[in-house]
C-alpha cells in the first residue's frame, strides 16, 4: 500500500495550465476558478467532433474496450497502480481492492461494451446515422454534447463505468468522482490517453472536495447538456435545484437491497453454497454498495431452517473476514454495531426470540429475529435474518422501503420465480438476480429501472 497522495485528475494535454493544488483524503487535486473551468469544458466540447464523432460507435467500443481490458491484466502497470492506490483512497483492504477491480473491469472490455450496446439499442448504428423505423420514417440517436458525471465515492469503479457509458455514446465527458472513487476513473482516463489519445481528448476526470470546487461545479452544471449523479437523497435534491430546467438529470439516489432464500435450497446439501454467496454479497464493498443486502428473508418449510442458515452465514462471514478483510471501521459504524449487538443481547435476555452471531471487534454481525417490518442495517457487514412463511409474504414487508428498493438476490424459488419477481417488482424492486450475481450487475442491466445508455439519448425523427 502506498501512502503518498494520489494525483486525482486526468485532463487532455494543454487544457489546464494555471491552477492551485489542494489535498483531501489522500487525493491531490487542482482548484480551478470559473474561467479555468469554463476553458476546460470548452476544450472538451471542442474536441468532441474529432475525438468521438469521427469514429463509428463500434470503433469507439473497440478503443474503449482496449483501455478497459488493461485492468484485467495483473501484469499491466496501470492495473498494478490501481491495486496499490485503491486501498488507501477507497478505504478498503488490498484483497477487497483486487475483487472490486476484477468485478468492475470485467465489464469494461470491448466484448461486454458491444453486448451492452446491442442490448440497449436494437440498431446501434442509429448513433451514427438515421436508421429506418419499424413504423416508417427514420430516426437517429443523439448523445448529449457534454455530460457531467458526479460520483458518490462509496463504491470504487462506479464513476469509471459511468464515464465509459458517456464516451461510448459519443458524449464529451467530465467526471467528478467522490473521494473514495478517484483512482479508477483517473487511471482509466490515463489508459485511454495511452491507447486512444484522440478519443481521450474529450474526457476529463477532476476531483474536488466540498467547497473547493464551487466554481467548477457551478460552471459544469450550467454548461453540461446532461448530468448523471450518484449520491444521497439530499445531494440529488440539491442538484435538482441548481440545474437549468432544460438540463436532464439522471439521478441514482440511495438504494437498499435484500436477499430472499426459498425453501428448495434450504437443504444440508445446498446450504454451504447459499451461505457463501450471501456472505460474499454482504462483505463485498464492505456493504457500502447499493446492491449490498441489508436483510435476508428465509422461507419456512425447507429441510433446514433460518437458524441453520444464520449459523452457516456467520461461518462464511468469519471466513471472509480473513480472505476478504475489511479495513478499520469508522467510529460511527463501529459504535452503531455495538449499540445494535448489545441491544440484541438485552432483548434476548428480556425473553425476545433473537439470536446474535458476531465477529471480532465490530467486524461482522448476524442477527436472527422475527420481523413484522424491515429495519435497515447499520452496515459494516451487519445483516438481519428473518424467517417468513412464504416467499410471497416478502413483498408486503418491503412496501415501506419500496421507493429505495433495488436488488433482491434470490435462490430456491424454482418455478415460482416469475410470480415472486412480479410481486417484488410491483412494490419497487428493480433487479431480481441469483445470489451469486448480486455484487456485480451485468453492464446492460436496467440501472435502477432504466436503460443505462438509453437514458442519455435524445432521438431525432426524420419523417417522410
Amino acid at each position, binding site marked *: 500500500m502506498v501512502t503518498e497522495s494520489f494525483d486525482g485528475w486526468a485532463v487532455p494535454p494543454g487544457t489546464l495550465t494555471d491552477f492551485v493544488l489542494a489535498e483531501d483524503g489522500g487525493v491531490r487535486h487542482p482548484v480551478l476558478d470559473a474561467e479555468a473551468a469554463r476553458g476546460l469544458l470548452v476544450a472538451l466540447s471542442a474536441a468532441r467532433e474529432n475525438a468521438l464523432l469521427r469514429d463509428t460507435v463500434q470503433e469507439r467500443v473497440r478503443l474503449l474496450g482496449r483501455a478497459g481490458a488493461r485492468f484485467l491484466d495483473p501484469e499491466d502497470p496501470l492495473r498494478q497502480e490501481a491495486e496499490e492506490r485503491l486501498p488507501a483512497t477507497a478505504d478498503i483492504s488490498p484483497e477487497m481492492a483486487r475483487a472490486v477491480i476484477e468485478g468492475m473491469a470485467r465489464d469494461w472490455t470491448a466484448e461486454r461494451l458491444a453486448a451492452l450496446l446491442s442490448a440497449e439499442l436494437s440498431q446501434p448504428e442509429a448513433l451514427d446515422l438515421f436508421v429506418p423505423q419499424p413504423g416508417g420514417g427514420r430516426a437517429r440517436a443523439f448523445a448529449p454534447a457534454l455530460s457531467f458525471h458526479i460520483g458518490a465515492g462509496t463504491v470504487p469503479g462506479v464513476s469509471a463505468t459511468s464515464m465509459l457509458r458517456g464516451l461510448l455514446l459519443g458524449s464529451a465527458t467530465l467526471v467528478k468522482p467522490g473521494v473514495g472513487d478517484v483512482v479508477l476513473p483517473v487511471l482509466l482516463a490515463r489508459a485511454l490517453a495511452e491507447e486512444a489519445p484522440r478519443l481521450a481528448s474529450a474526457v476529463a476526470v477532476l476531483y474536488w472536495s466540498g467547497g473547493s470546487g464551487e466554481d467548477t461545479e457551478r460552471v459544469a452544471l450550467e454548461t453540461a447538456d446532461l448530468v448523471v449523479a450518484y449520491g*444521497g437523497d439530499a445531494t440529488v435534491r440539491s442538484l435538482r435545484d441548481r440545474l437549468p430546467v432544460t438540463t436532464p438529470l439522471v439521478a441514482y439516489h440511495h438504494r437498499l437491497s435484500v436477499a430472499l432464500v426459498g425453501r428448495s435450497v434450504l437443504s444440508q446439501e445446498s446450504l454451504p453454497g447459499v451461505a457463501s454467496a450471501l456472505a460474499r454479497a454482504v462483505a463485498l464493498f464492505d456493504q*457500502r454498495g447499493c446492491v449490498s443486502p441489508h436483510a435476508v428473508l428465509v422461507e419456512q418449510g425447507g429441510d433446514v431452517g433460518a437458524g441453520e442458515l444464520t449459523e452457516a452465514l456467520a461461518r462464511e462471514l468469519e471466513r471472509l473476514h480473513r480472505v476478504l478483510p475489511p479495513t478499520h471501521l469508522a467510529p460511527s459504524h463501529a*459504535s452503531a454495531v*455495538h449499540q445494535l449487538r448489545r441491544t440484541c443481547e438485552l432483548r434476548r435476555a428480556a425473553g425476545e426470540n433473537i439470536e*446474535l452471531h*458476531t465477529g471480532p471487534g465490530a467486524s461482522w454481525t448476524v442477527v436472527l429475529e422475527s420481523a413484522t417490518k424491515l429495519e435497515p442495517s447499520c452496515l459494516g457487514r451487519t445483516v438481519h435474518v428473518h424467517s417468513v412463511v412464504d416467499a410471497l409474504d416478502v413483498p408486503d414487508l418491503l412496501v415501506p422501503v419500496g421507493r429505495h428498493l433495488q436488488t433482491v438476490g434470490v435462490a430456491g424459488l424454482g418455478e415460482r420465480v416469475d410470480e415472486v419477481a412480479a410481486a417484488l417488482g410491483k412494490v419497487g424492486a428493480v433487479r431480481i438476480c441469483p445470489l451469486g450475481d448480486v455484487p456485480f450487475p451485468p453492464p446492460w442491466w436496467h440501472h435502477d429501472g432504466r436503460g443505462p445508455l438509453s437514458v442519455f439519448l435524445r432521438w431525432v425523427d426524420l419523417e417522410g
Partner: protein
Amino acid sequence: MVLAPVLSPSPEAGPAEPSFERLVANLVGLFQQGVGEALDEHVFNGWALRVFRWQFQQNPAFRGYCLGRGVTPGTVRSWVDVPAVPTGAFKRLRLMSTEEGREPDAVFHTSGTSRTERRGEHCVASLRLYRSTLLPTFRVHLLPDGARLPVLALMPSPQDAPTSSLSYMIGAVSEAFGAEGGGWFATADGELQEEELRRAVEGAVDTGAPVLIAATAFALAYWLDGLARDDLRFALPEGSRVMETGGFKGRVRGVSRDDLYHGILARLGIPMNRVVNEYGMTEMLSQFYEPAISRFQDSDVGLEDRFHVGPPWVRTRILDPVSLAHVPDGEPGLLCHHDLANIGSVACLLTEDMGVAVADGFRLLGRIPGAEPRGCSLAIEELLEAAQAR
C-alpha cells in the same frame, strides 16, 4: 461469539439490599455531601458495586445480559467490569431496576433527531433522586454565587411536555432556585413565544434584575435569528447567565458555537464566560456542565479549551469505538458513563458520543461524525422518512 442461553433467574447476587427506597435515601445522603469534592475511588467503587448488585437482582433483562457475558456480582471487583448498556437499548426495552410492580414516577422520552426515529424511554423510578442529583450540580455550575434568578425557559413547561426530562429539570431548578419574573416561553409543540420573551427581557432590563436563560442551542439560535431580523439588542443586567444544551456538536444546524455565543453577547449582552453548555441525556439522571462560571469566571478560556465535568457520583470512561477497550489518555473514544443516580434503571451507559479525557472531565467531540451510512447505500434516516411519508 454465540451467546450462551439465558439462565433462569438464580442470581449469585450476594446479600440482598433492603429496598429501593432505602437505597435512594442512602444515595440522596451521599449526593448531599456536595459536588465540590471527588469521591475516593474505594467509596465510588463500593457504591457502584452495591448499585450493580441491586440492578442485577431486580432487573431480569439486565441480569440475563450480564449472565450472557459471564458477569455476576460474584465476578465484579471493580465498577469498570460492570457491563455497559447501550443508550440505544432504551428504544427497545423498559429498563427499570426496582421491586416488581413499582410504577415509575415519570417516563421521559428521548427527543430523536427526526420525527420518524424510534423514541427511547427512560422510566424514572424516583423523581426525588433525580432532583437530588440535578439540583446541586446545576447550582454549582450556574449559580455558584448563590444567586436566585428568574428563569426564562425557552422550552415548553413540564405540564405541557410531561415526557421531557429537560423541562422537568428546568422546572425543578426554577422551583428550587428561581425568583419572580421567570416563565416558560415555548408552546406544547415547541413553538417559541418570541413576543412574550421579548417583554420578559425588556422587563429585566428595566428593573436591572439579572436573569437565567435556559434553552436548547437550537431554540437560542432561532431566537437570536429573530432578534437579528428585527434588529433588536438588549443589555441584560450584569449577573445574567445562560445554560444552553444540545449544541455541543460544535454546530447547531448551520450555526457554529462561536457564532451562537457571539450572538448571545451581541443581542442579549451576556458575555461568553456566563454561557454554560450542559450535556445530559434522557437516559441518565445526572448531568455534565462546562465549568465556565464555576471555575473560569474570570479567566479567558476559549470555547475550544472548554470541557465538561460531572458530579462526583458519575465517572466517565473513554472507550475505543471498535474494541470498546480503554483508550490511552488523550485519545478520542466513545463516552461510557457510570452514574450512581441511575440506580432505578441501569448505571453504566455506553453512548454514541465521542470525547477525549481532559483534567477531571472530558472534551466532547460530539455525536460521531457521519453517524449514518455514507454513499449510495441507504441512510437509515432517509429511509425511515421516506417510509413515513407514504
